[in-house]
Each structure stands twice: as structure tokens, then as C-alpha cells.
């Protein structure tokens, strides 16, 4: 289980390098130059649009079960603010709809 293949290692190192570059640039660069209003607005939209862009095809591929799972995840998260409960409920709903559908 200790094995590691080259492509996987390179992908992990690439992710780590990109992430460190972003972290360091905030400390070294962003304190000196003020990002303009457009860039600030762009960055403020990025977390939400990333999650949506990721979730949309995943949910669409899973059809009705995906939709049910996504809605329950959102509703439980909004009411409890607990990631644990929202994940459990979302996966449960996904599982339930899928077993009913087949």
C-alpha cells in the first residue's frame, strides 16, 4: 500500500505547487497591489460558481436520484448548518430515490 506511481505523484505535486503559489501570492503580492473592482467581484463569485459548475454535471448524470440528493443536502444544510447531517441526509435521499427507481 506504500506504492506511488509517477503520474499520481506529479499530479499531487502540481496541486501542491499551485496551491502554495496562490497562498504565497496573497501574502507577497496582494498586500501591495490593490485588486480593482472587477477582479474583486470576479473572485467573490468564484467559490459559488466553482461548486455549482462541479455539482451540475454530477447531479445531471445521476438523474432523479441526483436531484433528490442535492435538494435534501441543501435543505438539511440550510436548516441545521451541520455538514455531517446534511451529508448523511443527502446520501440517504440519493440512495432511497435510486433504489425506488429501479
Amino acid at each position, binding site marked *: *500500500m*506504500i*506504492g*506511488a506511481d509517477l*503520474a*499520481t*505523484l506529479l*499530479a*499531487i*505535486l*502540481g*496541486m*501542491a505547487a*499551485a*496551491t*502554495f503559489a*496562490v*497562498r*504565497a*501570492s*496573497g*501574502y507577497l*503580492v*496582494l*498586500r501591495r497591489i490593490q485588486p480593482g*473592482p*472587477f477582479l474583486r*467581484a*470576479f*473572485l467573490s*463569485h*468564484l*467559490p*459559488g*460558481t*466553482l*461548486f*455549482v*459548475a*462541479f*455539482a*451540475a*454535471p*454530477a*447531479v*445531471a448524470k*445521476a438523474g432523479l*436520484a441526483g436531484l433528490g*440528493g442535492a435538494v435534501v*443536502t*441543501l435543505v438539511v444544510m440550510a436548516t441545521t*448548518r451541520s*455538514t*455531517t447531517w*446534511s*451529508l448523511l441526509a*443527502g*446520501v440517504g435521499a*440519493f*440512495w432511497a430515490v435510486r433504489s425506488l427507481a429501479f
Partner: protein
Amino acid sequence: MTVIATREGFWRGMRACVPLIIGLLPFGLVVGVVAQSKGLSMFETALMSAIVFAGTAQILALETWQEAAPVLPATVAALAVNLRFALMGPSLAPWFDAMRGWRRWLSVAAVVDHAWALSLAEMRNGRHDAMFYLGAAFGLWAPWMVSTVIGHAMGSVVALPPGHPLFFAAPACLIALLVPVWRGAGIDILPWAVAAATSLLVTPMLPIPALAVVIGAVSGSLVGAWRDTAGGRA
């Protein structure tokens, strides 16, 4: 404002993380289980958690992982998902400046949402101990490592077949995160709709799912930023 750096600050930062561990565990377990299902060894999984240390990027990259590890798409996805870390740098800079040598760069390497939020709260309370940041980051890093390794071990024991309903937990992690990110319909509906539509449109055309996510997110954010600054809402 004088910034100090003490051992006491480190411990206080670590203790401040304890209540957050419960919320972090499910993400770590999901990362571990998904990594195992995508064929990563336990060493590779632990290495990723140790040096990338960014849950959202890890989930997104692993979900879109393919047979041959996607070096460039994973790197681009990590860059896009973690751009927000750059915004945290300026507010932490006075603390990082107060640290010397490896402590400073280790803190920079560990910029992460919850440690940043805890440190801002600490600053607002008038306490300026730079080691608080390192303590908080370590207090999150250690359970992150432990939970992803446990998730990987669980994945090997249970050996879920591909497509098992439990794997819906991975997209559900990011779907759940939409709730705290939501700023209201007037702000979010347009960019989110553009992001979803673009991503759905380009996904079948692209061999690499992670790039479709980045293209969708960038389109949505561009439209949102354009509306916020130049157009719309006059």
C-alpha cells in the same frame, strides 16, 4: 500594534480548532474513501492531504480523477479552487511578517479557511500573537491527515463498487458548501446559472471533467463581475 510570537499563542490556536474538528471529519473521510476508490495508495492519499491541505480542491480533483492521473487538470483545478486563499494573505500579512524563517513559510503554506477565520476573530479581540495562526493551522492539519487516512482504510476494507450510492457523499460535500457561500438571489442566481449551464454544455465536449468545472466557474464569475461593475443594476 505589536505582534508577538509565543508558544502560548500556538496552544491557544490549537485549542480554538477543537470545536471545528467534528465538521472537518466527514470531509476528510470522504476524501480518503474517494482517493482509495480512484486507486491512490494510502501513502499518496496522505501526501496529498499533507502538502495540498485544501479539502475542496482535493474532493474536486479526486472526483474528476481518471485512469492515468490527470497532472495538468488537477493542477489547474487546484489553482482555481484555491484562488480564494490569495484573498486571505493581506489580512494575515502582519502576523506572518512577525515570524522568522521556516515558521513564516510554514504558515504561508498552511493558509486555509478556518484558521484564517479564527485568526481574524483573534485580531478583532485585540490579541496579536502570530503563533496563534500556526497553532490553528496545525490543529486543523492533524485531524485532516488522520481522517483522510482513516477514510482510505475504510475504503479498502469495505471496497465499494464504482457507482455505489455512498459515493454521492463527494458531490454532496460541495453541494452543502453552497449554503454558507450563498449571498442572496440578486447576487448569486445569474453567475450560478451561467456556471451550471456552461459546465453542463462543455462537459460532454471535453475529455477532462476538471477543466469543464473551471470553464463553467470562470464563465459564471465573469458574467457576475461584469454585472456588478459595468453593466446591469444601474
